[in-house]
């Protein structure tokens, strides 16, 4: 076929690709932070007294979880300006990732809260603690520990999803790769190497998560 692999292009493009990794990591970390905030706030709102608030949270979760990310980010980028809210691509990407990840985080964290044995909560009440104190001091940490693997798994997915943010011209690894590809036409080499870079990013994040887990959730259980 006459096609020979030539990985030298990847070598020359290395600085650009590494900056792309930084972009991806930045989007991912900011997105995770936002997702976590939406997650915890959403879980609290999901059990709120106001039926309206609960309905809004449920509706939000269902809509976000059942439509593709691409449609969501297009909506944020192209539709919000119509109502006067113009966000730059990076902000759009972070919000889209945070909103998307947040909807999943709400469901995951809620599962963790529900997995806490009822006796733990009752023991808190029996000691005279109030609802908020019980949630903060007794429920939250074991709940997060219980769902930590699924939550971090979701965050890895969020990181990979950030590749779609190139659609609204956000700066991240895939968009850099596409530029390099279009300059060199060495598609296979570039994409193969970029796949490897994503793997490295995932593994880096997973080690980070493991360290956090070790630091905060390493109390002994049976």
């Amino acid at each position, binding site marked *: 076929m006459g096609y020979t692999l030539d990985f030298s292009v990847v070598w020359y493009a290395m600085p650009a690709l590494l900056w792309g990794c930084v972009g991806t990591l930045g989007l991912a970390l900011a997105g995770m932070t936002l997702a976590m905030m939406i997650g915890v706030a959403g879980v609290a709102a999901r059990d709120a007294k106001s039926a309206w608030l609960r309905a809004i949270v449920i509706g939000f979760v269902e809509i976000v979880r059942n439509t593709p990310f691409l449609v969501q980010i297009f909506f944020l980028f192209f539709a919000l300006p119509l109502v006067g809210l113009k966000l730059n691509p990076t902000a759009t990407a972070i919000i889209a990732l945070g909103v998307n990840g947040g909807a999943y985080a709400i469901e995951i964290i809620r599962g963790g809260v529900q997995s806490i044995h009822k006796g733990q909560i009752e*023991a808190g*009440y*029996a*000691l005279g*603690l*109030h609802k908020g104190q019980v949630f903060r001091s007794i429920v939250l940490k074991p709940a997060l*520990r219980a769902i930590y693997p699924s939550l971090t798994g979701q965050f890895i997915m969020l990181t990979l999803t950030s590749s779609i943010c190139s659609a609204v011209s956000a700066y991240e690894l895939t968009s850099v790769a596409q530029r390099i590809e279009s300059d060199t036409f060495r598609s296979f080499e570039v994409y193969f190497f970029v796949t490897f870079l994503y793997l490295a990013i995932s593994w880096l994040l997973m080690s980070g998560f493991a360290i956090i887990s070790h630091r905060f959730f390493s109390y*002994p259980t049976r």
Partner: protein
Amino acid sequence: MIEMKGVQKWYGGYQALRNVDLTVRRGEKIVLCGPSGSGKSTLIRCINRLEAIQQGGIVVNGHRLDDSIKAIDVVRQDVGMVFQSFNLFPHMTVLQNCMLAPIRARRISKTEAKATAQKYLERVRIGDQAEKYPAQLSGGQQQRVAIARALCMQPKVMLFDEPTSALDPEMVKEVLDTMIGLANDGMTMICVTHEMGFARQVADRVIFMAGGQIIEEGAPNAFFRNPQHARTRQFLGEILAHH
């Protein structure tokens, strides 16, 4: 100290307590027994308002339990409770378990809370385990921590819901001993338990429940030797047979 009058409690359509009257004087020790599902747990959980009641009234230490948060607060601070499954908080050390409620609910200082916690941990002979996590302790030790944790709130009444039934046989004794010590110090206590030896030794009154009602009560000697009701006799026959 505790006064229950005409208490009725439903879980949905199922009536778990039927017209229960019970008065407990200061310093009195009550043992509650009865077949599974008879409403023993429900009864004591109503006393610190872990369950709401649908009819009747409960007064604890002069405070009438109604739906007001204020009343519930006061009562819960006066009433300590120990569960069958310990319910220690797994992410806190023994000491933190004991300090949490005094700091958050009684708003006392950390140093003071720590001193109190140490005192009660010594009291249940477990002061040296203060820095361990619950999972690192044996069942009997965990239950003693649970007792110390409740004591740290300096309650006026202690409720025990089958505190030894999740324990290995060897550990039962250490927990019962702790409870006996507490009883001898004059604590007002209501214990759900099937440890009849314990009942004989410390109870002022033994109460037998079945089907959500109090069927029979009496001083331990009279109760064990000469139960009045057929249901009580059957129950005692079964639980004492294999001992």
